[in-house]
């Protein structure tokens, strides 16, 4: 059983800088939780507090129900994979992985068994006698993971392990890590700034910004129901488009009027909102929810200028402008558009979001 619970964890540095503000979440046994957020948002600090590399200013950290705030790292039964791998340069791959076991006086046949087992899982068996400097980035990363595996810890901690790899390696390793999780059936807490990694790997994502947790949810829920504008804009690529609009209640529907853009949002979803006339809201539309206007979706048509077309092969990203607003749309590759021309577009109003412009919380 390896369950991690964080209650109001806070980190305040000397000088008053508050890196983590009262974070709380739970990691269930065998769960893969990803902490995601932009650089400097405090996610690494949070991970390091769990690891014991940073002291906890306030709050409680519980592993399997036991409070471990004051326990040193080595007694928490955790293993960590660092961003820069932190391999011992003077030891071979075998010795790197065996190091922690040696320190704990494991018998050498037990050490051998575990190291070889980990090496097998990670495909490192032929590199056991090499030193880190003779390995490629991807191999070094695997050694770092191997070092964690042999410990058979309660919790695995990953601190942006893929950032130092090239793009192709990253994709490959991502898949391997997912497989590893399935194979080892272990509790894993993973930190990254890449929302793609978060979305593809996590059972549950914790979005962090400015030291505060913005939302905790499984990937799909995060995508469909973001709690605030930040989460909405962070998850999904290309990012969601945001338009500042004003309401006007006409005919029991909500009509949003931006500069040169007006749309009527009708239906049960919208009528349950109690919006005032001339209240300001932010409208969020994902690029993939924008289509070229056809006769079927004539309700939310708007006119826009085609500024830039980016060819992706199977689709195109189109930069549209509506007199001052720039929005991005994801359209099929065969869309008949030309740069500089105006076109008629519509968006899927079932999938749009509304945010309060000041608190940035989701209204819908």
């Amino acid at each position, binding site marked *: 059983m390896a369950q991690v619970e964080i209650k109001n964890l806070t980190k305040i540095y000397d000088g008053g800088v508050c890196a983590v503000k009262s974070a709380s979440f739970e990691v269930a046994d065998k769960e893969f939780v990803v902490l995601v957020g932009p650089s400097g948002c405090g996610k690494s600090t949070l991970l390091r507090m769990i690891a014991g590399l940073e002291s906890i200013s306030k709050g409680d950290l519980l592993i399997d129900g036991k409070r471990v705030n004051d326990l*040193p*790292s*080595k007694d928490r039964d955790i293993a960590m994979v660092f961003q*820069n791998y*932190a391999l011992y340069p003077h030891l071979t791959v075998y010795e790197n992985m065996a190091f922690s076991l040696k320190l704990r006086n494991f018998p050498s046949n037990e050490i051998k068994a575990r190291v070889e087992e980990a090496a097998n899982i990670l495909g490192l068996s032929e590199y056991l006698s090499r030193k880190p400097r003779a390995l490629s980035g991807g191999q070094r990363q695997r050694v770092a993971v191997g070092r964690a595996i042999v*410990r058979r810890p309660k919790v695995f901690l990953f601190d942006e392990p893929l950032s130092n790899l090239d793009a192709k390696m990253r994709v490959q390793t991502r898949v391997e890590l997912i497989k590893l999780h399935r194979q080892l059936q272990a509790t894993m807490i993973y930190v990254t700034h890449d929302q793609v990694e978060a979305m593809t790997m996590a059972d549950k994502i914790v979005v962090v910004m400015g030291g505060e947790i913005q939302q905790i949810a499984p990937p799909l829920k995060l995508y469909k129901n973001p709690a605030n504008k930040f989460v909405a804009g962070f998850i999904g690529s290309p990012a969601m488009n945001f338009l500042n609009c004003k309401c006007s209640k006409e005919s029991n529907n909500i009509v949003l009027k931006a500069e040169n853009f007006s749309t009527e949002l009708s239906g049960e979803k919208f009528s349950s909102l109690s919006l005032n006339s001339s209240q300001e809201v932010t409208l969020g539309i994902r690029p993939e929810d924008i289509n070229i206007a056809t006769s079927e979706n004539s309700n939310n048509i708007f006119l826009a200028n085609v500024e830039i077309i980016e060819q992706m092969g199977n689709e195109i990203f189109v930069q549209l402008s509506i007199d001052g607003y720039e929005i991005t749309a994801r359209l099929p590759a065969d869309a008949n558009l030309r740069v500089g021309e105006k076109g008629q577009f519509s968006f899927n109003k079932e999938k749009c979001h509304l945010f309060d412009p000041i608190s940035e919380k989701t209204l819908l």
Partner: protein
Amino acid sequence: MNTRPNLRESLISYIFLVPFLVVFIVFLGYPMLYSLYLSFRSTTFSTDWYNIFNSMEYVGLANYRSLVLDTRFWWSLGLTLSYAVLTIPSSIAFGLWLALLLNNKLKGVAFFRSAFYLPNVLDMYVVGTIWVLILSPNYGLLDIVLSKIGLHLPESGLLANPYTALATIAAVVVIKGAGFGMILFLSAIQNISESIYEAADIDGASWWQKLRYITLPLLKPVILFMIITGTMSAINAFTEIYAMASSKYGGFGGPYIQFNGESVGVTSLSGLYLYQLFERAEYGKTAAFSYLLMIIALIISFANAKLLKVDK
């Protein structure tokens, strides 16, 4: 840069190289050979004292033979060895200890770093002389400080006592030279990435285990360097001994003890012995001795490199 060097570039290179080469050949290259040449010669009765070097006579291996048979020769080598054993490990330990202390991110660390390095750049002769003053029996600072806690230096002082003279000089040299090792170790330690220590924390290493399994192995190149430099210093040791060794007989071989039937100076290291031969104008023997020393030094350097398994 791996194409065959062309003539023009070689020519230009050599023009730049000429001043350095000239001085090197005249004062370093040629002397090495000249030394060998001289080692087979000796001054005799018929030597013209105004033109010594040209009028020494060929004596074959006589110089080497008389050196090898001379007790003082072996004595000086033995002393050099004990001096090296006294200074090298302590310099390394002391320098390492200082570097570990200074590795904390405390304020004022930079001040201490400079303060410890300062004695290293000072003139050895002058510093040695001042230590003689401090160490003098009955009046020196050390004696007075010790007397306050009830101890006293031996009657004739540490430097005149045959059993402590060498150790005292070694201590002074180590204290003075600590800064050197400290700086080398400090920069090497600071080059070790912090995350390795964090990984060790998580792996469960105690402070001592971290030192032993991570820090020290990664400092091996520095340690090797210090051993080699230390050996060089021991073989070359002259100034510190000249400044500090005392002897009732006016020379500077240090206080005398009996060894193998002769009375030999207790601080008569190889460097000193070499100088004594030189002073007595026994140039042939001086050259022979130099050569033997060089061979010994080279052997030691290679042995050390092999022993610590680091490629130079």
